[in-house]
Structure formats: structure tokens, C-alpha cells
């Protein structure tokens, strides 16, 4: 042995190693067959493009699948998972190196590379993998967090993997013990095992025999484990990284439009109605339960659990998917009715996924934000809702009322008995007159003087939104914002009666038809209002309008520069047009509206403004920013009476009140409605909900009588009345 060239003899003590390749054949057959049958199931879905823009995809792949950022949001599981998969990956590379050495003559098994990588690094990573597995077992079977459920499968493949790793070290230890490997110290774990074997006083022949047995045993276990991959949740080894690569790159807030003229089905009521990517999602789930933990509906005992939605659909696909492969006779979009032995196939929407579950979703996106493998729960839930809303005309009562009102009145507030411009009485809010030759006219039913010539007298179109216009509490926010805009010298106008609901409510209920009708009317109006002349922006105080105007109207010919009022106010402050001089002595916490934060990544603008308020102390709620907990009003649930479980808005109100803040600031009219109610029912008048515009109104109010009493509740500085 040349002591200057570190090495080891590959396949020491092993005879008949070619048997290994014979054994590998069935393993590979099982592996590829498993994935092929999955592939056939995914192909049941409709086409969609998910391979464009490879640069962005690769960047996301790196963050999601390599660095695994989202996994590390939970430190423990982040490291645990990193140890296991990192260890496995390094060991796999080590094994591949052996093959390189053996068949291609690449000298991986000698020299410094052998010493540092093949011995030291592999040993360390093998140990880390064992540590990771121990952490996993401890967590799953001792800590037992609710988000993990336990199936026999989990125990089997965790145990199997542990055995594979341990036997690997046993083999190494025996080899070192018998061969008295001079470089043993470079394999510290193997060296320790060797020391242990020697300490037993085992005879060398016994060790040689044991080594040979362990080697084959290790091989068999490893092969069994690989064969298991496509048949257990280990599938995620392959599908999860792929899923991250193929994630949606579109704006988060955009739902895929349906071409209603050509649609052969509406929404999704069986597997054929999903895209192949939606079916692929199901097999990419790691069952980690992060989505379940994030879900406000699940936290308040609703029959919705995003993890269960994914897994139930997955099980349905695995069990009944093969029946879909036989083309249906008459309707190519129909689901199979029964199994070959005459059992009925359960209906997907209604039996596999309960209608109540679908109607409990606030579309808050917390699940998708939490999911480490980029599974898209919300579009899937929305597709099933679309089926219910459009094909079945079935939905909760409150939503049906909203739809009725939208159909006839263009706003979802049934029975408000108000007019769209009621809120601006007494304020100087110019209403754009889009009739021929119009300009703007003053508020209050045309009582004010006409503005300047047509098209010349405003820079910013303020999209007021139905909730701001019709809901009493939110009308105060609109009035505050009007005053703030005036103080900053912003030349703005509103559309008055020509504004219709953007259709967010209709769309999130699942009523795409009504949404597209409203979108069409609004796009025509907006294109007329903004069409000629210099580019103008749209400002809105409603994150739902914001999201729809910005991300969904482009599909219908409306391309606008849209800002949310929290961003706009920030700009006004930054540019010095708005001076936050007034004192606002409050402890404030900010509730992130889902459609502003998670959907549109606006987190900092409102916070910065709050911090700029003199006298204000800002505190963060535990679940803030990306992990914000929905107010309960999204997905048109603001119109529905919450009948099942506890109430989401009360849960959120308690979380906010726990900060000790006396003011919960938000920036969404639905959040306002939900939180004001939640706070009233949980903490009486102790804690109030205010919109950012109202706080800024206070901070910018001119000193004098108007400011007196500004702190007395929900209508700060309403002095211009």
C-alpha cells in the first residue's frame, strides 16, 4: 500500500457485485413505472404553459428547492429537512463518484479528493442525515404538532432510511476495523464504529462475514427505499422541486379568465377540468401541513383545511384517475360514473371536497404563501367554486344576495338603500362627467360649479369602490381620504355613478360571467375617462379594487397605472406635499390586508407612514406581513354570515389586541368592517379600528376648531361637514 496516496479498495470483501445490477433492474422498473403511471394521471388535466421564462424559473428553483427559504421560516423543520436531504444528496454524489472511478476511471477514490470529500464530507453529511432523521422522528412521534398526521407509511420510510444510513456506517466501521485503514481518522464516524467493533473483541473473520452481510443488507434496503419513491409521499423528492420550477409566474392576484363564449364546461367538477399542473400539484405535496397551520378557516374550526383539500384530491386522483384514462363515450369532459365493478365514483365537488369547505375559503392566500413547494390551493378552490356558482347556481345566501345586487345595481350591498355619491355630501369632490362635452362637476348632485374644461382638470382618478361608497363606516374613511388629497393639493376626480363594482366579489364567489360583464363596463368607462391626454393614475383605498384593476383588468383590455392609497400617501409624504405635523398619540398596530400584502407585496408603505406619525407607537402583531391572519372578509365572505366554528374576525381582533395597541390600523374596507365588528365584540370600545387615511387625516388636520375632538372615535376631523 502506498501510504503517500490515500485510497481505499472499492468493493473490498465483496464478491459477485454484479448481482447488484441484476437487483437494480426491478428497482428501476418499479421506479419508472410508478412515475409513468403518475404521469398518465397528470395528463388527464388540460394544457397550460409552465416552461416559459426559464431564467426566472431557475432563480425561483434555487430559492425554493436549493436554499429552501420557505422551509426555514420554521427553523426546526428547516434544519431538519436540510440535514436529511443535504445528507442524502451528498451521499448520492459519493456513490456516483464510486461509479465514476470504477467505470470511467476518474480517480475519485484516491488522493486528497478521496480524503476530503469521499471520506470526511460524506461521513459528516451521513451523520447529519441521521441527526435530521432523529429530529424528524422526535417531532412526528413525540412533539406531535397537529399539522403532521401520521400514517404507517411515514414510519416505514423514515425507519428504512435510518437503517440505510446506520448500516452504511456499520459497513465502513467493519472495513476500517479489519483493514486497519491508515486514513481512518478521515472517516470519523466510521472510525468510531470501528473502535466499537474492536472493543467487542469480535474475531476478524466474524467481522469480515458481518461486513459482507451488512453490505448486501444495506444495498437491499437502499434499493427498496428507491423503489418506494413513486408510491409514497417520497414522490416529493422528484415532484416538489419540479413543482417549484413550474410554479405560476403571473401576478399572484390574477385568476385565469374563462372564455365564456367557447367554454365547454364552467369551473372544475372533475379531474379533466383542472390543468395538468393542478394535478401535478397534488403529487408534489409533502404533507408538511404548513398550509393547514396558516389557514384562518381551519384555525376557526371551519370544514376547510387546505392540506386536506390537496390530499383528498390526490387520493381521489390515485383511486379514480385511472378510470378517467378510458375516454368517455359521449361527453369528453365528463367524469367516469362508476368503477368496473359497478361502484359509483364519488362526485369530486360535494363528496370528495365538501361544498362548505369551498365556501369557507377567504382566498387569503396564506396557504400558498406558506407552502414550501408552491402548490396553488387558491386557484383550485376557485375553480371548484366556479363550478358551484356558475354551473349549479349554488352558493351561500349572503353571496347570492351580493350577486343579485351586483346584477341589477352594480354593487354588492343588497338593501343598503343608498346612492353611490351619498358619502361626499358637503365635500368638494369633483365627479367626472363622461357624457358628451362633460368635464367634472361638483359634488352634491351637480350643485357645485363645473370644473375646468373636459379632460384637463385632474391628475389622479380616485376609484372609490363600493364598500367606501355604500358602507357607513367606510364612508368616513373616504371622507378622510378626500380631505387628505385636498391638503396635498392633489387634483383628483371620481367617476360617481359611472363606477361599478370592479367585480372582485363576483369573481371570488366564482361568478366569472358577472365579473366579466362588470369588468367590460368598467374598462370601457375607464378607457374613456383616462383615454386621451396625459397619462393618469388610478388611486384606490380598496386592496380588492386595487388588485383587480391592476392585475385582472389587463386581460380585458384595461391597462392602468394603479396605486393603493397607502402607497400614494407615502409618496405624498416623501415628496413633501403632505406634512404629518399633527400629533397622533396612539399605540397602533397594523393589520395587513391579504390583497395588499400577500397579494401585492405592499407591506412597508403603510408601516413607514405610521412610524412617521408624531406621538404614535407602532407595535407588530405576531402574525404580520406574509403570515398575516385574514380578517375573514376576503373571497366575498364579508357578505356571508359565519355560521360554522368560531369567528375569524374575533380571532384576528384578539391577536391585534394582544399587542396592547389601542388602535388597529388597516387599509381595506372589508378589513375595516370585519375588524371593527370583531373588536367591538371582543374588547368593547377599548380598541378601535382606523384606516390609515383616517390617521393621516388627523395628522394633517389644520390646527383649530376642526381638529378639536379629532381623537374621539371613528370620525376623526370630520369638521368640514
Amino acid at each position: 500500500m502506498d501510504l503517500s496516496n490515500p485510497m481505499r479498495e472499492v468493493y473490498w470483501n465483496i464478491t459477485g457485485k454484479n448481482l447488484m445490477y441484476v437487483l437494480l433492474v426491478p428497482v428501476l422498473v418499479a421506479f419508472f413505472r410508478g412515475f409513468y403511471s403518475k404521469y398518465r394521471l397528470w395528463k388527464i388535466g388540460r394544457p397550460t404553459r409552465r416552461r416559459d421564462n426559464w431564467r426566472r424559473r431557475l432563480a425561483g428553483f434555487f430559492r425554493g428547492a436549493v436554499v429552501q427559504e420557505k422551509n426555514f421560516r420554521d427553523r426546526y423543520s428547516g434544519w431538519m429537512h436540510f440535514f436529511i436531504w443535504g445528507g442524502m444528496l451528498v451521499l448520492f454524489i459519493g456513490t456516483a463518484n464510486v461509479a465514476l472511478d470504477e467505470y470511467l476511471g476518474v480517480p475519485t477514490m484516491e488522493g486528497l479528493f478521496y480524503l476530503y470529500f469521499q471520506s470526511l464530507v460524506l461521513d459528516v453529511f451521513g451523520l447529519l442525515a441521521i441527526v435530521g432523521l432523529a429530529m424528524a422522528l422526535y417531532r412526528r412521534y413525540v412533539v406531535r404538532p397537529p399539522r403532521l398526521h401520521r400514517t404507517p407509511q411515514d414510519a416505514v420510510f423514515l425507519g428504512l432510511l435510518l437503517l440505510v444510513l446506520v448500516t452504511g456506517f456499520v459497513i465502513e466501521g467493519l472495513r476500517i476495523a479489519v483493514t486497519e485503514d491508515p486514513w481512518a481518522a478521515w472517516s470519523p464516524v466510521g472510525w468510531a464504529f470501528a473502535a466499537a467493533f474492536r472493543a467487542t473483541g469480535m474475531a476478524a473473520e466474524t467481522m469480515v462475514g458481518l461486513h459482507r452481510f451488512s453490505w448486501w443488507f444495506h444495498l437491499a434496503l437502499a434499493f427498496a427505499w428507491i423503489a418506494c419513491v413513486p408510491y409514497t409521499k417520497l414522490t416529493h423528492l422528484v415532484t416538489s422541486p419540479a413543482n417549484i420550477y413550474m410554479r405560476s409566474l403571473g401576478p399572484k392576484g390574477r385568476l385565469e379568465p374563462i372564455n365564456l363564449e367557447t367554454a365547454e364546461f364552467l369551473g372544475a367538477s372533475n379531474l379533466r377540468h383542472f390543468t395538468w399542473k393542478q394535478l401535478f400539484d397534488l403529487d408534489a405535496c409533502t404533507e408538511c401541513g404548513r398550509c393547514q397551520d396558516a389557514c384562518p378557516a381551519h384555525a376557526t374550526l371551519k370544514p376547510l383545511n387546505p392540506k386536506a383539500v390537496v390530499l383528498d384530491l390526490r387520493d381521489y386522483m390515485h383511486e379514480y384517475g385511472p378510470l378517467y384514462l378510458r375516454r368517455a363515450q359521449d361527453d369528453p369532459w365528463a367524469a367516469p360514473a362508476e368503477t368496473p365493478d359497478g361502484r359509483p365514483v364519488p362526485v369530486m365537488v360535494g363528496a370528495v371536497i365538501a361544498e362548505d369547505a369551498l365556501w369557507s375559503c377567504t382566498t387569503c392566500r396564506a396557504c400558498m404563501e406558506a407552502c414550501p413547494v408552491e402548490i396553488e390551493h387558491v386557484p383550485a378552490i376557485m375553480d371548484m367554486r366556479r363550478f358551484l356558482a356558475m354551473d349549479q347556481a349554488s352558493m351561500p345566501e349572503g353571496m347570492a344576495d351580493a350577486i343579485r345586487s351586483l346584477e341589477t345595481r352594480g354593487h354588492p350591498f343588497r338593501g343598503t338603500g343608498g346612492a353611490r355619491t351619498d358619502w361626499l355630501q358637503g365635500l368638494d369632490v369633483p365627479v367626472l362627467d363622461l357624457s358628451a362635452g362633460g368635464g367634472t362637476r361638483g359634488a352634491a348632485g351637480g350643485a357645485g360649479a363645473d370644473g375646468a374644461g373636459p379632460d384637463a382638470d385632474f391628475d389622479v382618478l380616485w376609484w372609490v369602490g363600493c364598500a367606501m361608497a355604500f358602507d357607513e363606516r367606510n364612508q368616513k374613511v373616504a371622507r378622510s381620504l378626500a380631505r387628505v388629497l385636498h391638503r396635498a393639493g392633489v387634483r383628483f376626480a371620481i367617476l360617481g355613478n359611472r363606477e361599478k363594482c370592479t367585480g372582485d366579489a363576483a369573481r371570488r364567489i366564482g361568478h366569472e360571467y358577472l365579473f366579466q360583464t362588470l369588468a367590460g363596463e368598467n374598462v370601457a368607462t375607464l378607457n374613456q375617462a383616462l383615454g386621451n391626454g396625459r397619462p393618469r393614475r388610478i388611486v384606490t383605498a380598496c386592496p380588492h379594487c386595487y388588485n383587480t384593476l391592476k392585475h385582472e383588468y389587463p386581460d380585458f383590455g384595461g391597462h392602468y397605472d394603479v396605486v393603493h392609497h397607502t402607497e400614494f400617501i407615502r409618496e405624498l409624504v416623501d415628496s413633501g406635499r403632505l406634512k404629518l405635523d399633527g400629533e397622533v398619540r396612539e399605540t397602533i398596530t397594523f393589520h395587513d390586508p391579504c390583497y395588499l400584502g400577500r397579494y401585492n407585496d405592499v407591506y412597508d408603505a403603510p408601516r413607514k407612514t405610521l412610524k412617521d406619525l408624531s406621538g404614535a407607537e407602532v407595535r407588530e402583531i405576531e402574525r404580520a406581513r406574509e403570515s398575516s391572519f385574514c380578517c375573514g372578509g376576503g373571497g366575498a365572505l364579508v357578505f356571508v354570515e359565519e355560521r360554522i366554528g368560531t369567528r375569524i374576525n374575533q380571532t384576528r381582533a384578539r391577536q391585534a389586541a394582544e399587542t396592547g395597541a389601542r388602535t388597529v390600523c388597516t387599509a381595506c374596507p372589508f378589513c375595516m368592517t370585519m375588524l371593527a365588528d370583531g373588536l367591538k365584540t371582543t374588547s368593547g370600545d377599548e380598541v378601535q379600528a382606523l384606516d390609515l387615511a383616517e390617521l393621516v387625516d388627523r395628522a394633517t388636520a389644520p390646527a383649530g376648531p376642526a381638529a378639536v375632538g379629532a381623537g374621539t372615535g371613528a370620525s376623526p376631523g370630520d369638521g368640514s361637514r
Partner: protein
Amino acid sequence: MNIVVCLKQIIDYEIPPRAFRIDRQKKKPAMPDASLVIGPFDENALEVALQLREKAGGGRITAVSMGPESAIEALRKALAVTADEAVLLSDPAFSDLDPFGTARVLGAAIKKLGGADLVLTGRQSGDWDAGQVGQLLAEELGAPCVNFAFRAEPGGDGRVRLYKETPGGAEILEAGTPVVATVTNAETNQLRLAKVRDLMAANRKPVPTWSAADLGLDPAALAAGRIEVLDLYVPTYDARCEFVTGETPEDKASALARRLVELKLV
């Protein structure tokens, strides 16, 4: 079973008084932008018809509306919730008809349709709220009339079973056909939402328009039954506050009494 449902298109009844605009000269509402809706009880009538057709396992529902061109939207909505056909009765001679005239026109249309086993109307229109057309229509058709029905089922021997609201309960009647029923609202008869497929199909369905001539009605004769609106205004409510003074409680009381007498309130 042939069912005819009479619908009236009206100005959105949710418009609050302060937003209601009237042209005092023409004595007509002046809100060109206002939404037009189906009268609320007429919607209930339509739902009762739809449920009856389901329970009977078949039947034919025809929606009929007398009104201006715009009323075709009300009929489309009826088609969208799967009424089988719709007819618009529109003619300048039909404007401002009193309930007798309206019943005459509707009656003529129903006869032209070949009669009906059951005719449903709302208990009142939702705008003028006269509440007479249903009964007068029954007269016109020579049929019995059941008021305040909220539910209908197939009865024995081709009869119709009608549930009728009474103070504190319901009466269940069986009527031979033809019969007219005016419908009131109940939890069970809020008009369903349309399925989108039906909604889109409804937009493509033809809706014939029948004029006075089509119905064989003489415009001059109809003109006799025209309503003349003397005045139309939004009622205003005034609140004034007056303090009644006096040295002693007795003084105050008698001062108050005097004031109330002056105001002719007692």
C-alpha cells in the same frame, strides 16, 4: 300544465327617497340611470311557478310583461331562470293604463297564448302597489282567484294546490283550472339565481312583442282606462323642535295642551 307568470318591470325599489328624482312637469320619475328590476312579488310568483313545474315533473312556463321596450330585460331574466318562453306586450296605447286596462291587455295576451291552467302575478307591483291587477285578471279570464299564495303544488285530478298566507298560519286550497293566484313573499319563494349556461342561452332566445293590434284590442277603448296623474312628489318629512315653557309643571302642562290644540294634534 300551462303556467303564465305576469311580471312588471319597475324602478329599483331600493332607491332611497333622498335619491329619488321626479319630473314635476311630466309627473314621472326622472332617473335615466336608475336600475330597472322585476317587482319583488312578481319574482316570488316566478319562483312559485318554477317550483310547481319541478314538482309536477313538467309543464310550460310563459312569462308575460306589459311595459316599454326595456321590459324585455325582465323577461330575459325569467328565461334565464328557465321560463320556457316570454312575450312582451308593448304599445303606446298601453302606457298609463289603470288596473282594469292592464288586466284587459294581460287577459287578451293569455287568451292569445291559448289560455293557461294557472296564472300567477305578484300580490302587488312594487311601484304603484295598487294590488288589483291579479283579481281583475281573474275576472277577465272568468277564473277564480286566490290571493296571497306563496306556494303551489300539483293537486288531485289536475287541480292545483295553493298555499295561502293567513294571519298566523296558512290555508291550503285546491282549485280547478284555470285559476289565478296572486303571490306574496315567503322564505321558500325567493327567486333562484340563474345558472350561467341558462343566462347565456336566455340572451339568444327570441322574445316576441305583441301590440294592441296583435291582441285585437282597440286603442281608443283602452284610452278610456288611462290613469291621469294629478301630482307626483317625494314626500318630505320635517322635524321641528319647540320648547314649551312655564313656571311650574302645571303651567308647562297646560301650555303644552294649548299648543297641541293649536296644532290640531288633539
